[in-house]
């Protein structure tokens, strides 16, 4: 994982590539340039931090198509679209797949650089969240299936008594499972556990109460 955020510029126009590199480089941000979407994909590493500046119109895979392809991945770095002739339809399409911004050429350096700074911030934040999530997922994977069940049910706010009834276990056993889960998830408080569950997108499992 590279720690230095980099701006990946994909534009078929050499002058645009070079001038963008020069401009972005002037504020001390690392820049890597690619002449086509294909060239970019060949060396694309989703772990590389930063953002992507895409020209919409390019021979071969267009900027929009490249973005659509990237958007299918679990994690997509923020994308800034630049275009010489943007129109509303194109902008809407770009935004639908999650482009952060749509900038028309020629643009003021101020605007572009602000957007890039913002995108890098977003990327850093998203990456941190992702990293945390990965840790939480790893912890959750250490839970036994019973602990997992109990974890899912208690974090949505169900009292132990109800959980015990639903799973057909004693309240005592539930308390033990819950304590194990807290410990394995490294949660200092129940509130922290609930926060983790939210981050993991945990939802109550669909269990039917067992009849006594």
């Amino acid at each position: 994982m590279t720690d230095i955020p980099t701006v990946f510029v994909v534009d078929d126009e050499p002058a645009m590539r070079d001038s963008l590199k020069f401009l972005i480089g002037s504020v001390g941000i690392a820049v890597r340039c690619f002449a086509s979407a294909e060239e970019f994909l060949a060396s694309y590493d989703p772990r590389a931090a930063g953002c992507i500046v895409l020209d919409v119109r390019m021979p071969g895979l267009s900027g929009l198509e490249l973005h659509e392809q990237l958007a299918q991945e679990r994690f997509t770095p923020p994308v800034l679209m630049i275009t010489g002739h943007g129109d509303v339809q194109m902008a809407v399409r770009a935004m639908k797949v999650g482009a952060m911004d749509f900038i028309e050429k020629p643009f003021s350096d101020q605007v572009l650089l602000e957007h890039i700074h913002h995108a890098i911030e977003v990327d850093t934040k998203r990456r941190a969240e992702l990293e945390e999530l990965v840790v939480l997922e790893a912890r959750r994977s250490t839970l036994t299936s019973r602990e997992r069940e109990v974890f899912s049910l208690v974090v949505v706010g169900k009292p132990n008594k109800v959980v015990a009834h639903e799973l057909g276990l004693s309240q005592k056993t539930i308390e033990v499972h819950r304590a194990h889960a807290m410990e394995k998830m490294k949660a200092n408080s129940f509130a922290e556990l609930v926060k983790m569950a939210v981050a993991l997108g945990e939802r109550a499992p669909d269990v039917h109460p067992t009849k006594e």
Partner: protein
Amino acid sequence: MNAHDREPDHALPRVLPSGVGRGVVWSDQLDGDRRISSSSSLSMRLGWSANGDARIEHRSWTQAVCVEDRERARRFLEAADLEGGEIDLRLAGGHRHEWIRLSLVGKDDENGLLCVARDATREHQLASAMEAWAATPEPRSSAWTLGRSVEHLAHLTGAELVLISERLPEPDQDRARVLAMAAPHTAVQILEHGIRGEPWEDAFEGRTILTRESPRERWPNVPLFQHLEAQAFLCFPLGSPEGQPLGVVMGVFRQVPDDQDWVEDLFRLCTGRIALEVQRMHSVGKFVVPVETPDQHTGLISRSAERYRAYVEGAATAIWCLETDHPISLRSGLTEVANQILKHGRLVECNDAFAHTLGRQTARDLVGARTSELPAFAEGAPGQALRKLIDAEFLVGHAEVAEVRKGAPARHLAFDLLPILEDGAFLRLWATQSDVTQSVEEREALRASHRQLTSIFDSALDGIFVLDQALSVVDVNGAFLGIAGADHHDVLGKHVSAFDAGSNSATVESLARAAEAQGPYRIRVSLQRMDGTPFPAEVSFCHRNDEGGRTYGFVRDRSVEVDAEERDRMHRNQLTHISRLNTVGEMAAGIAHELNQPLAAIVNYTRGGIRHLRASDVENPELMRALEAAADQAERAGDVIRRIRSFIRRGEKQVEITRLNDILRESLALAEFSIRRSQVRLEVDYDPEDRLVLADRIQVEQVLLNLIRNALDAVRETPESERVIRIRTLSQSEHAGLVLVCDNGPGLDPSDVEDAFAPFVSTKAEGIGLGLPISRSIIEAHGGRLWCEPLEDGTTCFRFTLPFRSEHA
């Protein structure tokens, strides 16, 4: 006769002008002794304009005169010499019944004998009529004689009808009775008629009256005249040699006779004989052949009988005669007469030809047989023929009967029946019978072909009209009435110019005339309907010289077609217009785009430069100011371009929900002509799914047309037989449709593919290189993509996508 006195104006003409009136000049070359050298050297020149038909010029006289009269003519010429004289001769060939009267008028050394002739046909007709009278076989009943005389008179005078009528005795003296009549084309009705009144009475008193009036109007109550198309009638007095009035002979004519004197001569000649017969009839009291023949007539009778036998027995036509044992009064009604004839009649005469029709060899055994014993009369064709005539209230006349036979096709027989009547009673029935199967079949075939033509005429989709020589409409079919918006009675008799819309370079009338001179042809003109609305039409004319010079016209109403053409043309114009506007707009857009890139780079460089300068330790306010000014200017230029582009973009697309296949179909229709002209094989595959797209139809059509045109240009170098353009529509994914336009031209070098889309780059000498960039920007404005990708087999293939219209949108 002295020829010079008679025909002074024809004396010795050296050269007879052609076309001179009734004149014939015979010229005989004389030798030095003023003798006729040889008969074969005689020549004749005939300018025969009496009836406009006979014209013989410079023929040897032996050819001009009929064979029988040649010897007589030669002798006349040899003997005549200077004496002068006259001779009547018959002409040869088709003019055999024409006579010329030749008068020798003189001679000269050069030309020889000169004769002038005039038409003597009528004199000879009269003479032969008299001969015919003399030759009439004797004796005959008065009724027969009267019947023959009126027939004869009708034939000679060309009358439609001739009848002999007498005044009835008291108490019916104000009525007239028809004793006999003849109408060559009409069956005779043996009834009494009240033909009395002014001209009749005048004639009865002894005056000859020619009335220029239709007898139908004169005697509206006399049925006999009702179906005659006649404009004149002659009432001729019939009187005894002592001057006592007997009755009136009447002749009815279709037109007033040209030569009234001639007609009256003939009537005069015949009425003498008729008067004798009528008188005899009155004195004897009934029409009976005298049984005891006077001795002096014996020879005549036997000769006449011989002639009769020869005629009857040798005839190919079947002849038979029925007689009843007793005369049957006509007053009992015609049906009764027929029944009596068929039930109680006896076959008194018949020839072998009739016997053959009954399957017998000879007539001998048949004569004397009862009609009741012969199935032919009980239920066969002869019986049917008689009943058929009776049903039509005629006893005399012509009837045709179809005889149905087992195992053989029906046979058609024609009968002519002639009853012999005396004093209002039936004596016997003469009949001739002939097999007319062939002519009936021919007639039926003609009718069938007529029916076929009629049904073609009536059911034709094109309007058909028939014009007479004056170009008035004589017939039209239903389709024509539909086109003209008229009924039969509106159109018939109208001159063809009534349908001329008046906006043609040539009148319809002159066009119809042209068919006469140039033969059939087809032309597009503007016609008008009955209500005066003009409509475009395609008319073909053809003219036939026979049948009175009819011109046939066939009309196709082109208004629907022309409307479609007009719409098509408008669509094309619109497309061209939009295409031109787009081209201008796209040129601006292209320039703007092309400038935009370097401008953006300039801005980036200068702004980047400023930042670098700021970040460094170097203090250079001059450089900083220059860089900032440069960046400002570049941004200003960018703004200008942005404004231009937003102005161009204001011409919004006219989007509608449509189908890719429909757009393709319409584009192909527009390109049809170019495709056909390029001799290229076109393969089109339509997407069976054919989903909806949201598009500016005209713009997308323009893209397709552009790609098709490029493909057509690309295959120009390919041999004609191998030129193929393939166009497909298909669904590329769930979201977008794909259109492929592929050609097997030389193909694009992969490195040139992107160049093809650059503005102002063209491989064509006359191109400005905007076709593909414009097409691409149109497709991109639609949210699609346009690119070029060769197929595996190396064919060039341009493709574009258009997003499907999402169902919920």
